């Protein structure tokens, strides 16, 4: 009898504890100290260090591997089943969709904060959930161009002669921002019968885009060109959180186009790798990391725009404003499937 009572008590205790655990959400979910290996492209400028320390406070033991977005993508593809990676964060929708298509990620139950994220940013099938959003802007130096003079949308650059040579055209097509811009332009000309799914008009447009730009000077960023009186460049691509930083650094004021079709958003997300051996801990980390609390702290620290709307108030006003531009309607799966082929064609045929 005593045994049964003890058993029942024990059961009740365990159940109540698990109920308690279930009740905990977001930043309250503590880690167990199991080592998690995390790949990210968003780790420099002290982000990796900050995250490692902050997570340690809540019981997480992180090993963070930081590399460029393309390198993270390559690495995950190449490492295949041997990858030590448990969780990935950062990247962008194009890469996320490529990783999904390659069956590298695992779909997970929506974390408690999933509903707090702006609509349309999370993966509908639950493979990745958004944490930071970056508007990919057509930026210009507002000291030298008034909003009236400035281009209103990307096609203005090649269609209006006044902008020729005044904007930067890329020489490397592997970067995330560049690929988002290209996706934003090319997906306006989707044509299932066209070459690589793009109509001839679209390819001509891309050709014009590259023909009339000033090629990037490798190793020198857009803003250095803007302030350089010897360079004709005033216009180029920029991600939203970068705009503020560069303004501060170069003492300029970034202006940006607000196209009718909206702008592409590079959605930094978080996802769990299919082959992880620490799924439970990984899931706890996702729950913790994406929470309004942590994302708010992250945003405060690094001046980014959180995807989590509850954390959005912590973001700088300028970010909130930039990220209020509507998102362009882009079929990311289509982009992910074709972007390499598109880039290949551009490199061979259109680039200067």
């Amino acid at each position, binding site marked *: 009898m005593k045994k049964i009572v003890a058993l029942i008590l024990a059961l009740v205790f365990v159940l109540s504890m698990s109920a308690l655990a279930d009740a905990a959400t977001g930043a309250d979910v503590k880690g167990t100290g199991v080592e998690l290996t995390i790949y990210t492209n968003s780790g420099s400028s002290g982000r990796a260090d900050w995250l490692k320390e902050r997570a340690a406070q809540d019981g997480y033991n992180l090993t963070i591997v930081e590399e460029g977005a393309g390198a993270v993508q390559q690495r995950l593809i190449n490492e295949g089943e*041997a990858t030590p990676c448990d969780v990935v964060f950062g990247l962008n929708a194009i890469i996320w969709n490529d990783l999904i298509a390659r069956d590298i990620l695992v779909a997970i139950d929506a974390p408690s904060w999933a509903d707090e994220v702006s609509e349309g940013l999370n993966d509908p099938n639950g493979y990745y959930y958004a944490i930071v959003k970056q508007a990919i802007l057509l930026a210009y130096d507002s000291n030298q161009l008034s909003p009236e003079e400035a281009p209103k949308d990307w096609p203005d650059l090649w269609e209006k002669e006044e902008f020729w040579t005044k904007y930067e055209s890329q020489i490397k097509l592997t*970067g995330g921002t560049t690929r988002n811009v290209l996706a934003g332009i090319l997906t306006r000309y989707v044509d299932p019968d066209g070459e690589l799914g793009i109509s001839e008009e679209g390819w001509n447009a891309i050709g014009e885009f590259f023909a009339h730009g000033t090629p990037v000077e490798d190793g020198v960023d857009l803003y250095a060109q803007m302030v350089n009186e010897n360079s004709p460049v005033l216009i180029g691509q920029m991600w939203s959180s970068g705009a503020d*930083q560069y303004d501060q650094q170069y003492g300029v004021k970034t202006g940006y186009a607000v196209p009718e079709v909206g702008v592409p958003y590079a959605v930094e997300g978080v996802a769990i790798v299919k082959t992880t051996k620490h799924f439970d801990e990984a899931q706890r980390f996702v729950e913790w990391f994406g929470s309004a609390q942590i994302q708010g702290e992250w945003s405060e620290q690094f001046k980014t725009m959180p995807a989590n709307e509850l954390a959005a108030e912590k973001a700088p006003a300028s970010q909130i404003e930039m990220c209020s531009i509507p998102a362009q309607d882009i079929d990311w799966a289509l982009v992910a499937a074709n972007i390499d082929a598109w880039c290949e064609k551009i490199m061979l045929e259109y680039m200067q």
Partner: protein
Amino acid sequence: MQAKLPLKVRLKRMTPRQMALFGVLACVFIWFIMACMVLPILNLLKTVFFEGGTLSLDSFQKLFKSPRAMKALTNSFILAPTLSITVGFVGISLVLITEYFDIKGSAILRLGYMTTLIYGGVTLVSGYKFIYSDNGVLTNLMSSVFPNMDKTWFTGYWAVLFVMTFSCTSNHMIFLRNAMRAVDFQTVEAARNMGASQWTILRRVVLPVLLPSLFAVTILTFITGLCAMSAPLLVGGKEFQTINPMIQQFAEMTTTSAKSLAATLSLILGLATMILLAILTAIERRGHYMSVSKVKTKIVKQKINNPVVNVLVHIYAWALFVIYVIPVVLIVLFSFSDSAHIQQRQLDFSTFSLRNYGELLSKTTAYRPFLVSIIYSALAAVIVGALVIVACRYIQKRRNSLSATALEYSLMIPWLLPSTMIALSLLLAFNQPRWYMFNKPLIATLQLLLIGYVIIKLPFTMRMTKAAFFSLDNALEDASKNLGASGLYTFRRVIFPVLLPTVMAIAALNFNGLLTDYDLSVFLHHPANPTLGVKIKSLTEEMGNSSDGVALTFVYAVLMMIISAIVLYLVYGRGGKDNIKE
């Protein structure tokens, strides 16, 4: 002069210990060459050209139809030969200035000319841009005199050629200088005695002795020209882009079709390299211009007799010095500045601070890559040195045998492909279990990058070490054996000590070269242990990162220059002194 015996006979004569050693070494080499080079490369070619089981040559078609690819290819093939000539000219001048002519301040000049040994790539080109690009020191100076000049003059073919001409003289400063030191001064005296002018002596007596070394370093220059990367990217502008940046971009894409483009372009470069090597080997076979004299006398620096020429040569020597040194000085200065000023090339002392250095040295994540790179580079330099010494020893002993030739050419394989493609081949081979790698996937292991590092340094090490081996006096080995020493003992006690200075110099060069590697590391590094090259690259990755990354890359560059300089001093500075004693 040793009469050759068939392998069978040799094996029969070996002691069990020798046999065991021979067997183990043979197995190690055959396995290493097959498993780490031949099979992965074949696998890569199969993957990209035989997708779905049929040979696909689409990539050739695509490339031949692409004006950009064709132009880049043409540019590479214009750059390589012209660069060989200009670098040859400057390289010979450096050697003559530091070793042959009596030039005031030659010790300082030498240090200046050796700066290319401690930095390269993007850092070096940025250093040149600080001077010649718009807002550069020299451009500003000139535009104050000629206000109408085009300030963006430093771009295109000539700019690339200029930068690379001065940056590719490292091998001349080491190997050609060594050759100059080996010149028998009595031949110079003899020529003078016969009434030859200084110019004639230089042209007919001294330079011919340098010719074999000059050939060897010219090959290296040619390959560097073909695979040019940073200089065309940074100063090539619209009209002068080359092939290697294209290869790298295609290789970094995830589709097979892009990779096959990269492979195709690589094969074209590889073919050119192969032809060149064949020509060089043929020339080499025609014979060495080794000094025949028994009693060599050390070179005495020649004072230039014609006073006008003397002054001109001094001006030339010091002008070269300035060209070499100012970029280094500016890089060091700018490393104290911030990203914005670096990119605008504005040297403003008010922006100077130690903040970047502090940040870098205080954070583990920032300095750990340093340790990783140092350890990997040192390990690889030692391993590659050891492998090549063993191989050279075999080639030396079994000269002209089929196995020796096969071994020599096998170790040259990595020159056929750019390092990006080598990395890719390793990656594709070892991201799954392979029987030839004991069924263990190597992906995400520490050894994968080490294998890569060792492989890409094989050809260079091979060429240079072999040259040292072949200039050895065979009688030393005979003498040692005659005194009863076994082959191994002879090698350890007699031959290796003689080779040591050269071996160390090569190892130092390899170490410095690998320290900043990006091409291989990005594909092969262990996830938790990124190398310096990867770290630096991630600093300037666009999205989501601080815009101060550029400044940090300069801090890294300066720290690496310091490490490289120390290594060179330890190894070469002291080795150099030994050489002088001889």
